[in-house]
């Protein structure tokens, strides 16, 4: 079933074209890597899906609906920055998510926090950057959402945390959900991807099944893109 659909979707910032008339259909039950170099339009596409931006032309739909309050109720979004109120502690955050997101599962969040040893009554602002990123991911993945939009979830974290984040994504998303992971670090996310969408200069260069791509090229996804586009830097 089509969960995210873009039809001739374009977004301009002044004279700069961030997305150029893209057509894309993503099905539920898939983990999709949205990859591409910096400035290729990955974050713009995710923001359009979350109604943080409005299209210049074309259309984007989530579960058949134009982004708005109804789609936000089924989309769990992890931005690429500290987005949680820094003055809140974990208990207050738990209450906030429980109050505002009907699909939030507090037991799941408590379990993940416990597993990771994140506790205490200090506000988020007093936690280390790594711990804050884990907390953000835990709360995002603790929603029983239909769509997860994860913008650069592994950028800027240590390898151990990266492994934890990927395990968390794999073990906590609803099976019928769509997980869209934006990243420019292909190697780390490659093992969990079902599909890959490669963006460059605001256009879709490639959208293919991850296994089919590896089979067709005889290379890893990361290796293939390094060779073809020569624009990678880990």
């Amino acid at each position, binding site marked *: 079933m089509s969960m995210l659909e873009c039809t001739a979707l374009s977004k301009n910032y002044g004279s700069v074209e961030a997305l150029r008339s893209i057509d894309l259909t993503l099905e539920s039950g898939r983990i999709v890597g949205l990859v591409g170099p910096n400035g290729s339009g990955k974050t713009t596409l995710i923001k359009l899906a979350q109604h*943080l931006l409005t299209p210049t032309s074309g259309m984007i739909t989530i579960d058949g609906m134009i982004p708005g309050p*109804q789609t*936000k109720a089924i989309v769990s979004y992890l931005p690429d920055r500290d987005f*949680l109120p820094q003055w809140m502690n974990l208990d*207050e955050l738990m209450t906030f998510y429980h109050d*505002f997101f009907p699909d939030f599962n507090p037991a799941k969040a408590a379990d993940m926090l416990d597993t990771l040893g994140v506790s205490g009554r200090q506000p988020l602002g007093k936690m280390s950057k790594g711990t804050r990123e884990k907390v953000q991911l835990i709360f995002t993945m603790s929603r029983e959402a239909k769509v997860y939009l994860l913008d650069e979830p592994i950028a800027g974290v240590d390898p151990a945390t990266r492994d934890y984040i990927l395990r968390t994504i794999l073990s906590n998303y609803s099976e019928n959900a769509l997980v869209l992971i934006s990243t420019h670090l292909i190697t780390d996310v490659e093992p969990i991807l079902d599909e890959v969408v490669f963006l460059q200069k605001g256009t879709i260069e490639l959208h293919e099944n991850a296994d089919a791509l590896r089979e067709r090229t005889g290379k890893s996804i990361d290796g293939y893109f390094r060779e073809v586009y020569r624009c990678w830097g880990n």
Partner: protein
Amino acid sequence: MLGKLIGYETKAFGRIMVPLYIAMLAFALFTGLSIRFVPEDIMQGLPGVLIGMLYGVLMMAIIIMTCVLSVTRFYKNLLGQEGYLMFSLPTDTATLIVSKVISVLIWTGFSTIVAFMAIALSALGAGGIEAFRELLHFFRHPEILQHLSQISGVLILTVLMIIAGTAASIVRIYAGIAIGHQFNDHRILFSIVALIAFNIIGTIWSTLLSTFGFYTGVFESLSRIFEADTVQGICIAQTGMIGVLLFQVALFGILTWVLLDRRLNLE
């Protein structure tokens, strides 16, 4: 959802304002008791000056913090990094804006009540329970009660005018901030420029309205009513003023909504 958002704003305001309120009320009582029990010659010296200064500083802190939080809660919570969370809540942009405005009105009300309570507590401390009895006695006087009942309409409309005026001011500031956020750099500067522009446009608009009122004879009719029945004249003028203020709330509210819903430009 609106109620939940207001509740969340109440928490955010309360963690800063409530300690200030407690400090103000406690110090007001202390000031009153000092006036009553500390010998006059000491109170007229440095201790009295310090107590008076601290009283003033606390009162100013409440006023300033109410104003600062009214602006920063909108600026940081909606247009800063927290905006990524707030605009991801399953609600519409209008509800987010309305919750901010209502919260500001509530906390402005609380701050006003605390300011009056502080004055009352100092008076209670200084004059004892007798002072309060005298004050109550004054308000129970038949002539005062009769006078208050005659102007009750004016009093109610004054309160409504203050509420509408506060709402209009805050929504105008929000619209200015929303305009400033259309730019990628110097956002605060452009917000201030937008607010100055609003003031200039507002002055021109008031002048045009006054000219319209003068030439169409509205002012003359109003002044005739005022001469015949002063209270009725004031009520009509206040009702008109509330209408103008509500129009401003709607105008700036719609402008803020359009900019945040259709042209959001988060950090």
